[in-house]
């Protein structure tokens, strides 16, 4: 290549003259020059910290936890003490081979009902194999793993990191992602379903001096360049609190699904869905109550429940309660024609469904309306 690459790069850099990433300024006041307390070195470049919390938000360690509540794909129960709650702090959110987890937290109930939270932290990139191996040991001891958004973020990342450090594919884990259940309960009432948002609203947790998740990578990069800081301690606390909140939330959702606990701002239809996985009768009561309170969205799940439980005769009477969306209007038109024998009303509803509907549904509504119109003139 013509020209000197180094000189050209330097020139380009000068020309760009973009403000460099600000180097963190050390303020003597809130600066901790030493590593946060309570951490011990357990391997080359690997640190460990354990804390124990006593908390009445936890289930008794021998309580049977229904995994189906967290995922319709799972079934069976597991003792609360065999659950492993986990969460990673990473260098980025985008995934890919260059995104690394530098801090991992695991939580599990001890025999006395307290929550043990164990954290592992690596001092620098070359020590990643030790961190990943330690995570592997934690997972190996667990009966099932509970995460928050782990199915699309933490676990795939863990699998990639295992490959990158040469540990091979991860053994299969029984995994429950609590985010999915949480979404069913709060998607309609909360601005978002982040753990921070739900712990405040549902569990009354107030974090003090918390560090926003988006700043976490920078804290790690700064640690690598200039050493430990107060902000690093805050990342540790943040990570630890995530596990405490995750465990409390998971147990709260589990109790609510069993009807043993009320949670604020919960969507009844979503709650009924979780309940239907463990107790159809309770789910039915939940839906009926919602319907009586005027929530038309409860109609369809209730119809499905009747179909599942073989009570087909109870389905049709629910039709008038369907919401006035295109599919609901279509069903009501059928109902009006066949049950009420009111062809005029049936036509009105079919035409409405045609007007509001799309695709195949609109075509069906159009055919129905046309047939009803033709019949009307024929009878006249």
């Amino acid at each position, binding site marked *: 290549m013509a020209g000197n690459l180094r000189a050209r*790069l330097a020139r380009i850099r000068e020309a760009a003259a973009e403000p*460099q990433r600000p180097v963190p300024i050390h303020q003597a006041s809130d600066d901790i020059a030493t590593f946060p307390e309570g951490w011990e070195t357990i391997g080359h470049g690997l640190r460990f910290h354990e804390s124990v919390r006593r908390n009445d938000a936890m289930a008794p360690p021998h309580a049977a936890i229904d995994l189906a509540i967290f995922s319709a794909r799972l079934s069976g129960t597991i003792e609360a003490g065999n659950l492993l709650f986990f969460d990673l702090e990473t*260098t980025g959110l985008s995934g890919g081979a260059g995104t690394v987890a530098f801090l991992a937290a695991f939580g599990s109930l001890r025999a006395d009902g307290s929550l043990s939270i164990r954290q592992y932290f690596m001092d*620098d990139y070359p020590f990643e194999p030790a961190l990943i191996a330690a995570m592997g040991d934690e997972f190996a001891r667990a009966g099932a793993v509970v995460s928050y958004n782990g199915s699309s973020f933490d676990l795939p990342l863990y699998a*990639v990191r295992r490959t*990158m450090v040469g540990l091979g594919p991860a053994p299969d884990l029984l995994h429950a992602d609590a985010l999915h259940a949480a979404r069913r309960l709060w998607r309609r009432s909360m601005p978002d379903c982040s753990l921070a948002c739900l712990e405040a609203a549902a569990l009354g947790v107030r974090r003090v001096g918390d560090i926003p998740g988006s700043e976490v*990578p920078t804290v790690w*990069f700064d640690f690598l*360049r200039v050493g430990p800081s107060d902000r690093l301690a805050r990342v540790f606390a943040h990570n630890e609190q995530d596990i405490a909140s995750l465990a409390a939330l998971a147990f709260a959702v589990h109790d609510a699904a069993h009807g043993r606990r009320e949670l604020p701002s919960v969507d009844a239809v979503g709650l009924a869905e979780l309940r239907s996985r463990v107790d159809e009768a309770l789910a039915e009561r939940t839906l009926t109550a919602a319907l009586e309170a005027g929530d038309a969205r409860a109609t369809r799940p209730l119809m499905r429940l009747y179909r599942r439980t073989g009570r087909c005769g109870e389905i049709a009477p629910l039709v008038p309660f369907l919401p006035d969306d295109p599919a609901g209007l279509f069903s009501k038109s059928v109902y009006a024609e066949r049950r009420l024998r009111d062809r005029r009303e049936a036509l009105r509803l079919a035409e409405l469904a045609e007007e509001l509907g799309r695709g195949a549904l609109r075509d069906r509504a159009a055919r129905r309306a046309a047939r009803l119109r033709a019949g009307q003139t024929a009878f006249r």
Partner: protein
Amino acid sequence: MIEEDAIDPVDRFLSDPELAPNIAFVRRVPAAPASWAELPERLDDGLRAALDSRGVERLYSHQRAAWDAVGAGMDIVVVTPTASGKTLCYNLPVAQALIDDPEARALYLFPTKALSQDQQAELNALVLGGDLPIKAATYDGDTPQSTRKAARDSGRIVISNPDMLHSGILPNHAKWIRFFAGLRYIVVDEMHAYRGVFGSHVANVFRRLLRVAAYYGASPRFILCSATIGNPAELATALIGRPVVAITDNGAPRAPKAVVFYNPPLVDPVQGIRRSSADESMSLAAKLLASGTRTILFARSRLRVEILASYLNKRFENVYNDNNRIRVEPYRSGLLPNERRQIERGLRDGSIHGVVSTNALELGIDIGGLDAAVIAGWPGNLASFWQQAGRAGRRSGASMAVYVASSSPVDQYMIEHPERCFGSAAENARIDPDNPYIYADHVKCAAFELPFAKEERFGSDPGAVLSFLEEEGTVRLAAGRYYWSDSGYPAEKISLRSATADNVVIIDTTAGRNEVLGEMDRPSAKELVFDDAVYIHRGRQFIVLKLDIENRQCLVEERETNYYTDAVVKTDIKVLSEDERLGSAALPIVLGDLLVRSSAEKFKKLRFHTNENIGYGEIYLPPEEMQTRAIALLFPEGGAAGSALAAMGDGERAAALSAFCGILRALSPVELLCDKGDIGATWRLRDDHYAVPAVYVWDRYPGGTGLAEALSSSLVPVLEAASGRIAACDCDDGCPSCVGLADDALQATGRRKSGGLALVRLALEALDGSSRSGR
């Protein structure tokens, strides 16, 4: 059938009295028989059966040559024209390898998504025909999330494009372990598309690909395919970073074809202005379409495509004749995928009779065979010319390709030298994988993919970039390795196709609509969709309400206008480095870095059809600044050219320099595989930096893509072409076909043409020998 139909449509066209006087050249390329070779001995039985079921009992000689070379473990590039059965050149050896080894995998790369879809259909035909245990999976931006995992895990052949490889596959290589571990072949089709910026990027993507493959213990071989270019082996070698064997003898048969060169009549002999090639091409296309000839019309720009398609459709709108059923569609980049598919389908099933296209349809997208191709203006290089010409009559039967020259020097040069089309004088394709911007970007991506060992080899000087990145904090050096140490995902911000990743999205806001019409890279947006510009999309006119560079969006509203807009771009330069001195003492040529600042401050409104200037508007946008590679031609008084300039008066000197600069820029694409728009040029009466008269030519991509270097070694043939063109031009004193038009002040001297020609000849004398032996 009527008797008339027995007349050869080509004859009918050539004997049309309206056209005949303007036909400068006709060559009837006769049919040629195939050159055959036997199927290889050790071909798998299933594969043999699959071929048999498609009627393939033997191979063309080049297909066999490819098989043999691949079998010998070589990296190869196959150079063949359109419709010569090139896909078997790679499908056969790859299929054999995948049958031999159940763990083996192959990667097929096509420059566009549309091409890969055609390919999968083709592959499935081959594979299913013989019930072969080979699964091909397309993996690109259109692949739904739900099928991506299956493609990764079970695709024996993964069909993708360089962009997806760059931003989707390589950064996530840990999800592709089996694929990379088994990777045996990398097939690169349409290699000639990988030149300039795109090629320079792709060469680096290949470096990353080989690095990741090596990490999983694989060392794949390359099979590349290319249309005709001057230096296929050289380009292939530059792309993959190791020697490549070229297979260039085509064994496929050829259908007869007439190649016609058409030069529109002069309307102003003094100014050298001819009737517009676009208008003439449109009339020719209209004539052909009206006579039932299915025709493709190639235009040079998206704007032209839109204008021509709408003119044609207007022409056929007349309800009183049969032609109103003729349908013509515009086809260009920037259309949405479903719009493109629709047009491709219409062409294949015949419901669309004609199409006006940019070079987007040059590549092997399957649209079936058309009867005639009309090429409005020289498409820039021979590879494109033959690919466009090949759109007519892909399968068999006589067809016709008509090249319609514009007034530009290259176009007129080609009219005068039709033999260039039939000789072996194809242009050379250039890339510069070590362009500092491009290279640095890919070192970043590579560091993201795998930590860099300190002494690891990767391109020219990874250490230079890595230490720079380390200072910046993007990577971290620990225990002898550079680790990616940033929260970003670098590939996401790096586009392989344009100077900047930040595309501007064009949004239609007419009557509360909020629909995305297309995208455009930022520098182009500043020159094309500034406030009040007219933007044309599929024949509809839009006016730009607001170009919001900061938020990367451009709001437009549908509005009928009788004009289109054209930005006037101003350029300033500054020398940053002198890296190499070439040429001679009489005419030094300096290769180095240049700072170019360009700004569009006003625009012209030009009336449709007449191109009459009906007004100006202001553009308020910050200038674009870039560092790039350039050559400076210096004219010191010691040399003959310099002293000739010194002897002239100021006006005359300016006229001569501007003429020299104009023709140099215009004719460079005769030797370099690039577009006129890829290079910039300017002249200085007395240069600030060198203190002598100077002419600068630069690469218009930041950091350069090898064009400045290539030009420095091709100056003599370019200047020879220039001298021939000026001498042959029958204009009075410079016209758009030779040294270009100039402003009134320069024109007043009346010595532009003679001065420019003298300067070209003196420069040739000064360079002859020195430049040739110097490199």
